[in-house]
């Protein structure tokens, strides 16, 4: 067993040019896939924060008693897709409104009575808020509650933004698939072409009576090593580059809140660029080893048919 490893490594060293080509190809492929995954995961996080900011406001009739309010809260909370329900008393609403219209506050400075209603602010949970129809459905359900006078859920343009974000997300998945398939092709193919140059060797070994395992095992081990090495180099390069860029472009984002768009808030302060999770990294590494193995398997099968 150990001896097969030694043969595989000796092979790698003696065909160093071709093996370097294979390893670089794998490393670049891993870099492409993982860099794009990183880009996409972070873009997705930003999009998510964006949709997280969308709220449904439910305005109550004047004079709903407190007991009923907590009942309504529970009712809303039980609805499909609701993440959080917050009650906003009309006094709080007025304060908020004043803050919103800073420049033109002269307008309401001398109001004697608070004309605003009590309200609920409702946020949707993650998978639901990626589809505008869910907002519409939920809004309709809430409107059906007695004591709810009016429901507002952002303007229609938010729905359009969600639509566009979804299109980009879709395009991102499509690109990711494309990149994945293309790199599988590149890697499998490079290993194939590398083995192509060793077809003669394989043929001769078979003719002098070497067993299939004796011939193939070193190739498999070799391609697993190449896959692993390429994966590590690719991910390592990405990690170093990522930290370098993020380190140099440190975002100085404090905590802040956008209150000016009714029913919308963009809590960008929550956002931090993150690297691929250890699970994803491990998956990529295993994937690159698998693809190495696959390339080897395909080419050996092709040669041995002859």
């Amino acid at each position: 067993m150990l001896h097969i490893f030694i043969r595989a490594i000796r092979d790698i060293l003696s065909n160093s040019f071709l093996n370097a080509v294979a390893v670089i190809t794998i490393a670049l492929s891993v870099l492409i896939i993982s860099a794009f995954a990183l880009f996409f995961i972070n873009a997705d996080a930003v999009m998510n924060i964006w949709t997280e900011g969308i709220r449904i406001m439910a305005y109550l009739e004047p004079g709903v008693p407190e007991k009923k309010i907590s009942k309504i809260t529970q009712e809303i909370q039980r609805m499909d897709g609701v993440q959080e329900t917050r009650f906003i008393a009309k006094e709080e609403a007025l304060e908020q409104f004043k803050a919103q219209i800073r420049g033109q506050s002269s307008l309401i400075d001398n109001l004697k009575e608070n004309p605003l209603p009590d309200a609920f602010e409702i946020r949707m949970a993650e998978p639901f808020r990626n589809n505008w129809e869910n907002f519409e459905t939920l809004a309709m359900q809430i409107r059906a509650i007695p004591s709810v006078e009016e429901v507002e859920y952002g303007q229609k343009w938010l729905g359009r933004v969600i639509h566009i974000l979804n299109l980009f997300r879709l395009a991102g998945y499509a690109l990711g698939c494309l990149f994945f398939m293309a790199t599988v092709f590149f890697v499998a193919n490079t290993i194939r072409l590398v083995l192509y140059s060793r077809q003669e060797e394989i043929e001769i070994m078979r003719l002098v009576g070497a067993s299939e395992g004796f011939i193939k095992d070193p190739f498999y081990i070799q391609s697993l090593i190449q896959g692993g090495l390429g994966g590590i180099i690719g991910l390592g390069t990405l990690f170093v580059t990522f930290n370098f860029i993020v380190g140099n472009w440190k975002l100085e984002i404090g905590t802040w809140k956008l209150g000016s768009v009714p029913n919308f808030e963009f809590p960008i302060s929550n956002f931090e660029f993150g690297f691929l999770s250890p699970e994803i990294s491990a998956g990529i590494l295993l994937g690159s080893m698998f693809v190495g193995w696959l390339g080897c398997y395909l080419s050996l099968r092709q040669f041995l048919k002859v």
Partner: protein
Amino acid sequence: MQTFSNDNFIIRIFHVHKRYGPKNALIDIRFDVSENEFLFITGPSGAGKTTLLKMLNLGEPVTEGQIIIDGVNLSRISRSRIPSLRRKFGIIFQDYKLIPTKTVFENIALVVEAVGTKRRLIRKKVRSVLRTVGMEGKSKSLPPTLSGGEQQRVAVARAIAGNPRIILADEPTGNLDAESAGIIFELLREFHTRGATVILATHNTELIRRTGGRVILLEQGRLKTSTIIPKLT
């Protein structure tokens, strides 16, 4: 000429045809080879000598007919048993078929290892066969850096390295001077004395005359004659 007792025939060839596309390379060949025979195959260029030897080693499939080696029918053998059957043969290819990217030592060690020699004995064995063919000084060279005759001698060394029961030698002295050819030929004769069956395809009529034995003459794919030539003294 053909008895049907199986015992002392190591190779039996029944009505074998070989076609490459439309080309008839071998037509209705039949003969048997006894255990420990020294058989010559001769005939003009393109007669089918190499094709015949390749088929014995399963390097080419038989188009029609049967070949039985050591009781095993080659048309019926399972894939997994092919390597062990091939290890019964030591084969010297007409074009040597050395692995160009491995050293002379590695080329031979490959066979020694494949027949299951213990690891620590491999080195010794390889050295000894290289010495026998006079190539001990070139064990670290790559085949493309050897002269024609040197490559041929390495091919011979590889063929005998696994102590095979049957040696198939395809024109093993074509690139050798008379002296080196003599050495190789003595080597094959020695193996024969020690019990191996030797099948030798050659144009070198002088060698045949010197040794004597059964000579099969192929011509345009047909077995023309099979004669016993007495040993020249």
